[in-house]
């Protein structure tokens, strides 16, 4: 780091510098992307990780388009063909599917991290609101995606989505006709158009208003996230489900995990628009108004017990409704209505009581703790970075490269053996190994040469310690 890069005579470097210089006349002048030179907590750039996954979804989705036709007759067979016959189709479809899950998860995690660290302050309201819209649209994008399979579950999910639109007050039927059309052959084309073009375009435009000017792109963490997507895909390969047959009504199905909370509300049997539309909207509204209520100068969650308590309460609510939405009485001898029906009195009572308990508990605990800590100075401790010696760095890097070679060979072999989920797992593992390797190489610091002319009182290790502190 100490030695500044000299003006290079290398032609390629010159060309790159020339291009970077000219890029300053473009919109990229306003964005500064930092590639961190040391480990940073990924919590701070979860948004960028969401974007990385968005790009992966764009690439894999564009590839999947080549073999997919959005029609009631062919949709399922096309996906099955991609999954079973097209070379590497299994892998690409799995990356796309698990990428969508990861994107929803990362977006929600990003929301909560920014919420608890009070980042919607300091004139970030526009970024906050566009982020919320992006989050909702992300779930819609994922929803339109899993509908394109046109299996039993997709058929039911489309029905519910369209009829919920239809059940909106006043403009419902017109809105339904406008967005979805009428009949499944129209639904599926429109879902496709929304999924591959309209919603991604909306997201891209919203991103222009959501990206802050300073971004962190961390290569090892991004690689690790992608690797994790592949590993999860290898462990839990995406299922095809049962092809929808118009001659046989579907059985009981549960929506994707990000919608089971909503499913739990609907299962209580109250008015469909209220349970499926208004109640979930309350959560979004809560997040929408927070930056306009929380006007204090304090940022960290420790100093904002009220909003921390609200945030934790909302997490508790999401967990309760999500888990409850998943749960279906396994006793299939019972009538379906008894297995599916969620008793509203106990459900809503538990929801309200747990929310109150969570809020009051967190709030009073944090207030009490703050009262105890009055006058005490807050000590911020940072973990010491682990630095390996030159020898151990070399040894571990070589071993990791050998491991990557091994993983590559096994991935190739398991692909040929048609153990495709194993291939996916091994590619993902190789990605994660690369992440570790990158991290080690980045963290390596060349040993300092002892300064011989220094004051004799100084211990020889001192400069190295100082460098490590930096």
């Amino acid at each position, binding site marked *: 780091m100490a030695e500044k890069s000299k003006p290079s005579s290398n032609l390629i470097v010159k060309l790159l510098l020339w291009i970077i210089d000219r890029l300053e006349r473009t919109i990229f002048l306003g964005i500064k992307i930092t590639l961190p030179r040391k480990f940073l907590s990924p919590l701070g750039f979860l948004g960028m990780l969401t974007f990385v996954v968005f790009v992966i979804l764009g690439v894999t989705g564009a590839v999947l388009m080549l073999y997919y036709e959005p029609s009631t007759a062919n949709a399922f067979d096309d996906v099955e063909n991609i999954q079973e016959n097209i070379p590497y189709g299994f892998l690409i479809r799995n990356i796309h599917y698990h990428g969508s899950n990861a994107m929803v998860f990362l977006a929600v995690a990003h929301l909560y991290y920014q919420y608890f660290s009070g980042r919607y302050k300091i004139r970030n309201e526009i970024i906050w609101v566009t982020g919320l819209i992006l989050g909702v649209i992300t779930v819609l994008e994922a929803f339109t995606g899993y509908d394109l399979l046109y299996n039993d579950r997709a058929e039911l999910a489309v029905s519910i989505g369209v009829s919920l639109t239809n059940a909106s007050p006043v403009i419902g039927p017109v809105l339904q006709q406008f967005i979805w059309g009428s009949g499944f052959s129209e639904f599926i084309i429109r879902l496709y158009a929304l999924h591959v073009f309209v919603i991604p375009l909306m997201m891209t435009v919203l991103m222009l208003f959501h990206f802050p000017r300073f971004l962190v792109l961390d290569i090892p963490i991004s690689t690790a996230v992608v690797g994790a997507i592949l590993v999860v895909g290898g462990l839990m390969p995406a299922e095809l489900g049962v092809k929808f047959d118009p001659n046989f009504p579907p059985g009981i199905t549960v929506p994707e995990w990000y919608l089971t909370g909503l499913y739990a509300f609907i299962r209580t049997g109250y008015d469909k628009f209220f349970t499926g539309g208004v109640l979930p909207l309350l959560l979004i509204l809560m997040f929408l108004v927070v930056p306009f209520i929380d006007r204090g100068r304090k940022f960290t969650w420790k100093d904002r017990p009220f909003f921390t308590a609200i945030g934790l309460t909302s997490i508790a609510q999401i967990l309760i409704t999500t888990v409850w939405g998943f749960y279906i009485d396994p006793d299939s001898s019972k*009538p379906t209505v008894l297995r599916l029906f969620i008793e509203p009195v106990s459900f809503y009572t538990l929801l309200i009581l747990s929310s109150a308990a969570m809020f009051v508990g967190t709030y009073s605990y944090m207030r009490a703790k703050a009262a105890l800590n009055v006058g005490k100075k807050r000590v911020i401790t940072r973990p010491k970075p682990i630095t390996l010696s030159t020898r151990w760095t070399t040894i571990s890097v070589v071993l990791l490269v050998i491991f990557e070679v091994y993983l590559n060979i096994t991935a190739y072999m398991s692909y040929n053996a048609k153990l495709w989920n194993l291939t996916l797992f091994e590619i993902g593992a190789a990605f994660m190994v690369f992440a570790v390797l990158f991290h080690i190489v980045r963290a390596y610091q060349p040993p300092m040469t002892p300064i011989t002319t220094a004051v004799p009182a100084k211990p020889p290790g001192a400069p190295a310690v100082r460098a490590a502190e930096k």
Partner: protein
Amino acid sequence: MSQSEKKNEPKPTASSTAPTVAPKPAASAARPSPVPKQPLPRAQPAGRRNFLKFMGALGGILGITPFIPFGAFFTASATTGKQEAQKILLPDGSFANVKTFPPDSAVIFPYPRTGDERFDSEPFRRFMLIRLAPQEGGGQNDASAFRAYSMVCVHLWCLWDYKPGRQVQDPKTGRTIVGNMECPCHGSNYRVTDGVAIYGPASLQTPPNNAQPMLDLAIDSEGFVVVNPPTYTVDRNGIIGYGRKVQA
């Protein structure tokens, strides 16, 4: 031309706000203007200015107005088949006949049948033909033994299924009904005799949103079950996905 206008414009405003912003005119006075002074455009009367703005806005609105009906592009309805009397085609290629169709069983069929698989497989054009259990009058050899309901649940449009032989208790009369119509999504149950929801979320919806649309059936001279052309209104055959008014 436009540049000089722009440069000139701030000056009158600066002088007009002179009492409040003191240093500005002083600074401009100290520094000689590089642009030679030109006659300022005469201030227009406020009334005329507002009128011109209004006309400009009106022109903009009139320019957009012709595009409003373009919304119809999104709401074009799908081609509908002919609403005519049709026999009911069974999956084995034969037609449903009162002599051969067993009691307490059901089959899904498209109406109106077009021969185009794209339309015939459409869930909104699918109906369930049910021959009631003998206890419910399925033993009769006339149209009263049959029912044909829309497959689309009036709650959230999932597709319900007929469960032969299953016994459910009618919550109103307490009578046990044999054969049950049941939705897999949220568990709505319908009374097989008239298509009114008796359990689950659909039963909590207010009439007419609690009953399945129903087709009128007849038996022709050879014993085939025939669908009479329906009228999709709440009072008659009902509206698919919406409901049907049932006379108590």
